[in-house]
């Protein structure tokens, strides 16, 4: 609030300079005539008297004593206004604090709640109501896997015992290899012409969707020998395994799956197919009657 100095007559901001005139250095106390007249101009009311005792060494303060009674009312109203604005400010502060606390609570608890919700949602999607009865298929007919590049057909031609002694099979066990063939649809060959010359499937064939297992005569399920073990035991690089089709999944046009199995214990293959969007079990096939490879 700007007031006029009673000593030098210049205007200055009372609040900024705490009542001390920056030009002449005379202090204009609250309740002085200069202050009151400026207050009246600002509020459009008559000036008021402060009834406080005079400060030492300021002549401008003396005139405040002659002011009449009604001038105490603006002071009181000023105090009320100040109180109201202070309480209003306090209320706003509390509101802001409450809002900030709520936001902080959301930030801390939100991810955990969302994570739990996502986990339960995924679990519900992946949970099966009952065990699945696999579809029995003949090895020559196989099964079909649908992709955006067409339908891939997987067939099985023969099975044989791996006579490679590098595996050092334990007593009573053998390494059984099963040969398979994947027919690539024309649409995929048109999109990826290089696939015709490449044994490893890369044309939108997601081998992670397919899980092959060996089924034994007592209905145990065995996983294929892993790429890591094949590479280590046969001393082949992963790229060489892919070129040969000797991997732990159905990911080549012509390939083999290898299993460590008890002698004469082979019954068939179980192939599980997952839905590419939800990862839920979509199809299950049981391939039996795979013929022995003729020597």
């Amino acid at each position, binding site marked *: 609030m700007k007031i006029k100095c009673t000593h030098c007559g210049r205007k200055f901001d009372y609040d900024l300079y705490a009542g001390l005139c920056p030009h002449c250095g005379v202090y204009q106390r609250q309740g002085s005539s200069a202050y009151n007249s400026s207050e009246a101009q600002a509020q459009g009311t008559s000036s008021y008297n402060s009834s406080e005792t005079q400060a030492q060494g300021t002549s401008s303060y003396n005139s405040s004593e002659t002011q009449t009674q009604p001038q105490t009312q603006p002071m009181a109203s000023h105090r009320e206004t100040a109180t109201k604005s202070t309480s209003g400010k306090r209320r706003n*502060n509390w509101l*802001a*604090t409450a809002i*900030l*606390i709520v*936001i*902080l609570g959301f*930030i*801390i608890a*939100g*991810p*955990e709640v*969302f*994570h739990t919700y*996502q*986990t339960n949602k*995924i*679990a519900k999607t*992946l*949970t*099966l*109501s*009952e*065990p*699945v009865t696999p579809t029995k298929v003949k090895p020559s007919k196989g099964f079909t896997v649908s992709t955006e590049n067409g339908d891939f057909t997987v067939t099985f031609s023969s099975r044989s015992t791996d006579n490679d002694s590098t*595996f*050092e099979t*334990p007593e009573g*066990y053998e390494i059984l290899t099963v040969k398979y063939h994947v027919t690539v649809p024309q649409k995929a060959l048109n999109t990826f012409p290089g696939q015709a010359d490449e044994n490893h499937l890369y044309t939108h064939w997601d081998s992670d969707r397919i*899980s092959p*297992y060996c089924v*034994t005569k007592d*209905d*145990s*399920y*065995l*996983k294929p*020998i*892993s790429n*890591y*073990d094949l590479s280590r*035991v046969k001393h082949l690089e992963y790229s060489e395994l892919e070129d040969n089709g000797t991997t732990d999944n159905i990911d080549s046009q012509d390939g083999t799956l290898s299993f*460590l199995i008890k002698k004469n214990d082979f019954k068939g293959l*179980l192939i*599980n197919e*997952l839905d590419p969007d939800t*990862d*839920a*079990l979509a199809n*299950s096939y049981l391939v039996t009657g795979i013929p022995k490879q003729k020597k």
Partner: protein
Amino acid sequence: MRGFSLGIECIVKGLMWIHRKSGINGILVIAILIALPCSIFFSESSSTQYKSGKRYAVTPVSDTEKVAEKDLPASIDRFADDYYKVVLQINNCYSTELPHAPYLTLDNEKYYASFRPLEYYCDIENSYDVIYLENCIPAGTTMSIPYYFSGYELSGHTLSVMPLSDDEITKSNSFKLTVP
């Protein structure tokens, strides 16, 4: 150590300065600015697949029978006086394979029993290490696995058995075994 103390002192002074200037709201704003990237990091690093757990059901499909020590498979631990066998059916009602037969434990600590499933490679798993031997129960399949268990003073008692896994599966998969 002195640097650590200085660091703490600077942080406290900074917080006090913020509190002087803008009150508790300033502290809350600082807390929000710190918590926001932490929560983003948490949500990105958490894996929902791991937390999904595995859903399977375990039920006994045979009576519990006493087994002589000489008839026990070689892979079964021999530490007690009583040996028993029970065949359990495991239904994998989930879209991911179980890496092995469920581990079992007793619901209460009144008795002690050690359960061992007789899986396919049990007879060679301790002696053969050329390739990794992996038992599994594929998604959506049912397998019957003989479990051998041994313990002290189990005869004549009813055991409350549960899979040693997360609580959700444990509560729904408890079953009773009457020991002859």
